[in-house]
């Protein structure tokens, strides 16, 4: 009891202070100014640029969520977000396109996560093959514009780049049809079975894309197999954007040396923002509509939903179609932005990473899913990637981790593990009856203690560590699956409802937990 009050007091104080709207507003302004100034002050030549840019850009990307969490007037919130999206971010992007690239990626994944959220979050249908619809959209645009000698190119059916916007609509329609085609056979399946079958579907699309190439007799080359399609067309840049970039450049005295790229990226950024806004609006309207309530009913109890007259077939198919259609539009955008499409981008691990976004943010909650997409994309494309660059930077300048730092870290980890082991021992001593799980506890405690002691002994006996000795195979950027795996497990065990949970689901999971506790006590 004592410990909780002492810990919560400073948090409570800050929370009380921020509940005043003016203090909150001042806090927001200060936050934006500091983060933005830090971003502009970054020196690319610095040896620790990767770490610094990570530390500066991650808070900046999360600013919209900070804004939404503060108790300020909604007009100020709207103003701040508009300012962020349409002034601060583009200017930052003109200075350094890699940040703009990240923002576009976040938008793309946010769109996908919102689409998956309709299927998984609203309707409760776990779809592990969601990436297939993204692939459909991407391949649609790539097949019709890539100069690679495919069937479509040979039959002179290529379309001009200006039909990009039209193809976004076509992508929506084709992906929706794909969603219905997937939905029809799996209507009767639930839960685990549905997950596996959709996974199989996703793999089937990928295998089809991979195998439709010049091999075979006669060759049926639509997708150019694992070589992929390159040279995918980009939408033409409107004149006002062409004029805008030099104007801003002169006004702010920025030094842009690749104006063409910057303009192109800016165009994609604005398209992505527009698409995301449309998707958010559609998702919000769906959530609070009779359709959304029907989905909730299906999710909660299918039999009861049928009994209450919910048209099950139509609603499930609609969920698949809606979710897929978002992915279709985003797929067209993605193909055009990357100018290269290959089956590798549509693997199961991509499906899972999108699922991870939905889970981390909070299944069913739109704001949560946006946050999840932001966090997971940043983790994948900013944190892990920059960590790798940082390590190679350090390797080049032969940086050294001093001995005392290794000792401190090892001692902290060792003490933590010993504490965990002690907790296991205590729970064994306190248990009233003999249990086999008690033996497991003791074994676990011994193992933990051994690891702890080994770590501490190792730290004291080893000397300083040259970063160039770090194995090149262990590049953080290659281990995103490891990180996603740990993330999913931790989220499921400690916060199954996500970072920003949806109200109803939070209650449900709490109820399940209490029930479990009661069962455990009996």
């Amino acid at each position, binding site marked *: 009891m004592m410990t909780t009050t002492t810990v919560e007091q400073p948090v409570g104080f800050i929370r009380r202070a921020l509940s005043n709207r003016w203090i909150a507003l001042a806090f927001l302004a200060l936050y934006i100014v500091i983060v933005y100034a830090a971003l502009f002050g970054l020196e690319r030549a610095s040896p620790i640029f990767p770490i610094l840019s990570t530390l500066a850009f991650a808070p900046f990307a999360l600013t919209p969520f900070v804004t939404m969490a503060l108790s300020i007037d909604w007009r100020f919130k709207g103003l701040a977000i508009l300012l962020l999206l349409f002034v601060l971010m583009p200017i930052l992007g003109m200075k350094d396109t890699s940040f703009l690239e990240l923002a576009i990626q976040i938008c793309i994944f946010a769109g996908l996560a919102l689409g998956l959220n309709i299927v998984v979050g609203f309707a409760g249908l*776990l779809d592990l093959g969601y990436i297939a619809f993204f692939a459909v959209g991407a391949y649609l645009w790539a097949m019709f514009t890539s100069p690679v000698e495919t069937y479509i190119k040979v039959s002179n059916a290529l379309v001009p780049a200006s039909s990009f916007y039209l193809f976004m609509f076509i992508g929506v329609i084709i992906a929706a049809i794909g969603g219905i085609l997937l939905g029809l056979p799996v209507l009767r399946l639930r839960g685990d079975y549905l997950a*596996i079958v959709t996974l199989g579907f996703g793999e089937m699309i990928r295998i089809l894309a991979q195998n439709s190439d010049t091999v075979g007799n006669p060759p049926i080359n639509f997708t150019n197999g694992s070589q992929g399609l390159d040279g995918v067309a980009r939408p033409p840049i409107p004149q006002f954007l062409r004029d805008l970039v030099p104007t801003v450049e002169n006004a702010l005295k920025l030094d842009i040396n690749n104006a063409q790229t910057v303009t192109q990226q800016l165009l994609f950024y604005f398209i992505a923002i527009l698409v995301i806004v449309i998707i958010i609006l559609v998702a919000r309207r769906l959530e609070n509509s009779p359709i959304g309530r029907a989905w909730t009913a299906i999710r909660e109890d299918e039999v009861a939903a049928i009994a209450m007259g919910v048209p099950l077939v139509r609603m499930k198919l609609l969920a698949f179609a809606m979710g897929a259609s978002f992915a279709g539009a985003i797929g067209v955008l993605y193909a055009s932005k990357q100018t290269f499409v290959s089956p590798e981008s549509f693997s199961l691990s991509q499906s899972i990473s999108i699922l991870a976004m939905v889970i981390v943010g909070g299944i069913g909650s739109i704001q949560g899913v946006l946050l999840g997409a932001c966090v997971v994309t940043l983790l994948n494309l900013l944190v892990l990637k920059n960590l790798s660059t940082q390590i190679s930077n350090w390797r080049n300048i032969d940086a050294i981790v001093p001995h005392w730092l290794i000792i401190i870290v090892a001692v902290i980890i060792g003490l933590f593990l010993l504490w965990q082991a002690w907790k296991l021992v205590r729970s064994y001593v306190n248990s009233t009856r003999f249990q086999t799980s008690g033996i497991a506890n003791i074994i676990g405690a011994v193992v933990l203690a051994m690891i702890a002691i080994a770590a501490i002994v190792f730290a004291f006996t080893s000397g300083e560590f040259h970063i160039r000795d770090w194995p090149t195979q262990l590049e953080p950027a290659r*281990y995103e699956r490891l990180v996603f795996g740990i*993330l999913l497990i931790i989220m499921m065990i400690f916060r199954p409802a996500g970072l920003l949970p949806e109200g109803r689901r939070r209650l449900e999971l709490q109820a399940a937990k209490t029930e479990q506790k009661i069962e455990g006590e009996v």
Partner: protein
Amino acid sequence: MVSNQATSSWLYRYVVLPLGQMLIFIVGAALLMTLFAYALAVLFPTPRPNIILADQIGRQLPGMIISGVTIGFVYAMIALGYTLVYGVLKFINFAHSEIFMFGGVVGFEVIRRIADAGFLESWSPLLLVVLIVITSMICSGLLAVIIERVAYRPLRGAPRLVPLISAIGISFFLADAVRAFEAVTRNAFKLTYPVSNIPALSTPISIQIGTTPVNIRVTSIIVIVAAMLMLVALNYFVNGTKLGRGIRAVSQDMSTASLMGINVNLMISLTFFVGGAFGGAAGSLFGLNVGTIDPFVGFIPGLKAFTAAVLGGIGNVTGALLGGLMLGMLESFLSGILVYFPALGGRYTDIFTFLVLILVLIFRPSGLLGERVDEKV
């Protein structure tokens, strides 16, 4: 006299019956697929110019059947892990494919270390195989128990999606953790079993059936024999021992079983151990048979074994065997025959397997041998 009778009935129940069942399944699946192949040959006599399909089938038939039985037993052993866990916890252990992979990697580590120590040629091949399989069984079984303890037990009673997502997380984590380990210790993660250095294992046995010579790989025979022995042992364990009875009781009704004095958590751990051990054995046998293994090898066999479990009826041990053999045979025949169809080619074999899964789930969700389980309202 009495004890003699008891012995003979024991022999019948735990040795003759399961072996007979396996033989029936093998022969049945082989016959079915042969019929299917010749039906294809009647429909498309010459899929390509200068190729008469019936002749090709006749030439390849023994080889296809043997490789079908081999793959089939591997699938059956993995499928057992899915089915046992599903029977007890009513949830699909998504991480099982990674347990299979782990078994393969452990088997590789054992044989590699023996080879590095220079004993590969001097030890008897039988001892090697037994050592590899037993080690991988124990390691994979323990891994499965740990996974259950860390990632599933805290979530028992939560909504169904929660443990499933946790299992996906485990599966991702394991694949990359093994990859990191192998990348650091061996500087590569494509692991090749040094089987080709053991002449006793790498030279195929040639026999003559009628006029066609047939080469049978020794590793195929090892897989088949080992799988049969283990399946007989499993049958005895589940149906003939007290612990097996405990597992069956828990899978029927968990709370009643706990009221009868059965330690439910222990039984669940035991189920995971047995399922994991079978997955691990399958992994090392797969590694011996195929030759190379990598940390991502588990995914496709895992998915196919799941298909096999569903095909046979998930939760049903005999069903897993039947489903595995059927699927293995189907796959072997498809990859043998599809080559002659110009537009398709063998590359689409996997798609047909998924198609089987989807068709089974649509038309007979309870599988071939499963009972229809109605959802409780």
